[in-house]
């Protein structure tokens, strides 16, 4: 998809991109709390623990790793019971007592630096893959040649379903900032409710070689998380071309709110998702 820029360059003869990082000085802002994580129900490879990471923001052009937040208190309630997440390392908090269940609303409460943050999400059931397989494809305008993992899946009729796709290559989660993400990694069944989709590529940027181990996951997510991710992928895939969509960007709003000082907002999302997973070794 990145090559879209290349095509446009060719077509419009001299259009070009210049790295101006060193010319730009950004005003920056006070660090904000960032949440990254949620509750996942995976019946294929059951999780031993649930993980949530807390960090703070850094300047956009700063070349630093996210700053971990190690001294917060995190409680997740499943409607009946509180579960405390404890800090392990590098801003990661875990809990192994909580059981992810369908049709359950999870509420997170974070206490940090004297302020309380709260938000919730609901875990909805996801449908299975009908079939998962590898397909070899020639080089195209947008991608190099190689093997792609594809799937068939039948959407349950008469309920609104929202999907998020994750692909792992040799055990490592792969994602690339790309304009195509917003149309590939998340899907709403608005236009295919109740139908079987075939040969769907869950991530067009991930190419496999023979012998690679592939895992693909189909996550059932809430509508609110779908909208959050859609905006996230639109913004991270922005190529600056006004005619393919270049809205003045805005802060992507979290589902977690600061109860004490609303304007001191938290960023990121606390999600709950059901995970359908398949794995395969790429062969001819």
């Amino acid at each position: 998809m990145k090559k879209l820029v290349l095509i446009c360059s060719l077509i419009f003869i001299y259009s070009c991109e210049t790295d101006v990082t060193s010319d730009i000085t950004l005003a920056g802002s006070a660090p904000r709390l960032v949440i990254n994580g949620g509750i996942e129900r995976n019946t294929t490879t059951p999780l031993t623990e649930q993980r949530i990471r807390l960090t703070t923001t850094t300047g956009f052009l700063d070349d630093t790793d996210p700053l971990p937040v190690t001294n917060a208190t995190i409680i997740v309630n499943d409607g009946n019971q509180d579960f405390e997440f404890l800090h392990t390392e590098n801003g990661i908090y875990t809990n192994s007592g909580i059981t992810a269940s369908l049709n359950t609303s999870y509420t997170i409460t974070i206490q940090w630096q004297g302020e309380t943050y709260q938000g919730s999400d609901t875990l909805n059931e996801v449908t299975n893959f009908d079939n998962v397989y590898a397909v070899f494809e020639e080089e195209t305008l947008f991608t190099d040649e190689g093997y792609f993992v594809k799937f068939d899946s039948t959407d349950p009729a008469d309920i609104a379903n929202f999907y998020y796709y994750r692909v792992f290559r040799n055990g490592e989660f792969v994602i690339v900032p790309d304009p195509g993400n917003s149309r590939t990694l998340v899907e709403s069944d608005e236009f295919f409710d109740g139908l079987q989709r075939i040969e769907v590529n869950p991530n067009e940027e991930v190419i496999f070689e023979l012998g690679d181990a592939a895992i693909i996951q189909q996550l059932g997510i809430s509508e609110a998380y779908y909208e959050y991710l859609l905006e996230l992928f639109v913004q991270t895939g922005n190529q600056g071309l006004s005619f393919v969509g270049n809205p003045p960007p805005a802060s992507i709003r979290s589902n977690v709110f600061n109860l004490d000082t609303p304007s001191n907002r938290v960023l990121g999302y606390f999600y709950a998702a059901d995970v359908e997973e398949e794995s395969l070794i790429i062969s001819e």
Partner: protein
Amino acid sequence: MKIFVNIVLGFFLITLQAQEKYTLSGYVKDAASGESLWAVTIITGSNQGTVTNDYGFYSITLPEGTYNVQLSLMGYKTSAQEIYIDKDTKLDFELEEDIAQLSEVTITSSGAKRTASVKSTEMSVIQLSSKTIKKLPVVLGEPDILRSIQLLPGVSSVNDASSGFNVRGGSADQNLVLLDDATIYNASHLFGFFSVFNTDAVKDLKLYKGGIPSIYGGRLSSVLDVKQKEGNIKKFGGTLGLGLIASKAMIEGPIGKGSNDEGKGSFMLAGRRSYIDLFAPLGGDDFQDTKLSFYDINLKTNYTINENNRLFLSGYFGRDVFELGSLLGTVWGNASGTLRWTSELNDKLFLQTSAIFSNYDYNLDNLRSGTEFRWNSNILNYNLKPRLTWYINDKNTIRTGLDVTYYNFQPGEIKPLEGSSVNPEKFREKFALESAAYVDFEQRISDKLSLQYGIRLSNFNRIGKDVILQYETGNPLTYNAVQDIYEENDVVGETEFGSGKSIENFYGFEPRFSARYLINDQNSLKLSYNRNYQYLHLISNTTSATPLDVWAPSGPFLKPQYSDQIALGYFRSFADGAYDFNIETYYKSLQDVTDFIDGADLLFTENIETQVAQGDGRAYGLELQVNKNKGKLTGWLSYTLARTERNVLGINNNEYYPANNDQLHELNLVGIYKLNDRWDFGANFVFGSGKPVTYPTGQYEQNGLVVADYQNRNGDRLPAYHRLDVSATLNPKKGKRGSWIFSIANLYNRQNAASIFFREISEVNDMDVATGETQATKLSYFGIVPSITYQFRF
């Protein structure tokens, strides 16, 4: 109502005053082609005169006597004739093109020159002929109307790759773009690099930036009225143009056999096609499945039924095609047809009636495996515009008429392609009827003071068949001030409306006024005020117009937008009209303009009301222009100082923020130099201070990607924009017909920033990976672009 009574009273008074006078009327035409000439100034005595209308018709009522009638129009030789009037007289005039003036850039900006403004009270109006436009340096070898008007004060470009334009702080959708009276909804080809107007098919244009007369309505900021050529009524001919991007052909000629070696009518047919796609194979296999092209066809015919009645039929059809391999394809275009009938009911009453059809539609094909589908959307309207002009006497003219439009919006229909797993679905169609009645008075109070005033009463009726959703609190969105966020309300029910049943009715009272005070022959002052209503909203989350933008009608959840503009101007001419100077200042306030809420998703969204918020805007500025109208070197210098801001609840912490098109300084310098009979040289220089941009204030990681955080909308500025273009035209030798136009756009290769955007670097050694490293990137569209065009007349 009181105003109405006054107007009617005034009307009778005027009639009573009419005494023993006779009417001189007729048409003014081009001597060579027989094309009717628009806006010709006709002077019959000291400060007495009139101007021809859109069809070249004039009428003036005078006491018995001998008059020295002078006709003048930029680019034509002034004609003078002594006429004795002792009865109502019909007289047609022909004007000859002034060869010496042909290379001059002529721009009529309601200047102070007596000849141009004896009768005109118009201000903030610019008139450009297609001949002038063709003299200006061009980008990619294709003269373009929309790029030319961007060289004028108060008109700015959306960006290099956009034919969208902003007038006095208005957004691109607030311009009423008319082609032979038909509304053009998307004036761009190739995503905006070209406009839909083929200069070979266009006669001239008028742009109203303010003081918009009551005969026009429906948009807030400007009216661009483009007229197609009628075609040569005396002999067959044509032109052929070969450019680097597109080629075009135009033929014209008489129809039937009339009097004086003229036809009973004439026709003009023009076509244009791009051929960038023909070069695509040069890009190798990669580009095999890539398509990008456009074409358009213009047609105009007219037929003289009898002395007093003429019929005109004009049409436009254009298409763009863009396809990217197995990813997406899109086709879009405008189609319009106008049938007009003009009738001189008598020598003082001129009736014109237009029946118009206009359609804009696009397809978007999603070609990704598994969910291939085609998405269709269109906006269709039928429009009827009768107008009666009454030339009461040499001091008073009244125009009155109706403007009725029926709209059918098809927001979208989805169909599966190649038997893919997509359910066919159709978003609800929407219907509306927009009607307006107007009256416009042009009145000369004294030798010095002229007025033009009128009102337009408009009504917009959203009608069924439709289903309107009911939201929990009555509104689709609720602004949560504590969290500074819009929350979507639940749908609790729906109301069905039968076919033709009124859903919501809006009324607009639109007064218009302009006055001109002639201090002396060289100086005049002008003042204008206008209120305009706009009932259609272009919902777009991009800074420039894209083919996929959605036009949404006002209705239960979307209020009409309206604006008030006041402008004051001073005009002066020097050295017998060789130079003129004008300065105008304006203040414009806008109400209920739409902006999308943060994070809006517009494509494939049926209930658009859940994605937009309405707020206010303000724009003010100062425009200066100096024209050099005579001599070997002609041209203009213009400067604009302007500010444009918006205030929308929930955006930018509820504070005023710069609109996307806010630009503090803009300077244009345009010159054409005529070296000799064969060579013309042209140059233009453009400078604009930086437009707003939103820079990120921080970064964080989410789902493996680096995400930017933002605070204030449009809080930063792009670098300043400047560019120099030059051109040279080699005109044919006597008896030869071909001419060459060489031009170089952006001569000193300035990489102007169309945008600066921030992203995570996603490529290392040609491998796609998320690196976690960030970058600021400047995108520019044109460096230096040479081009060559060959034009042949036959």
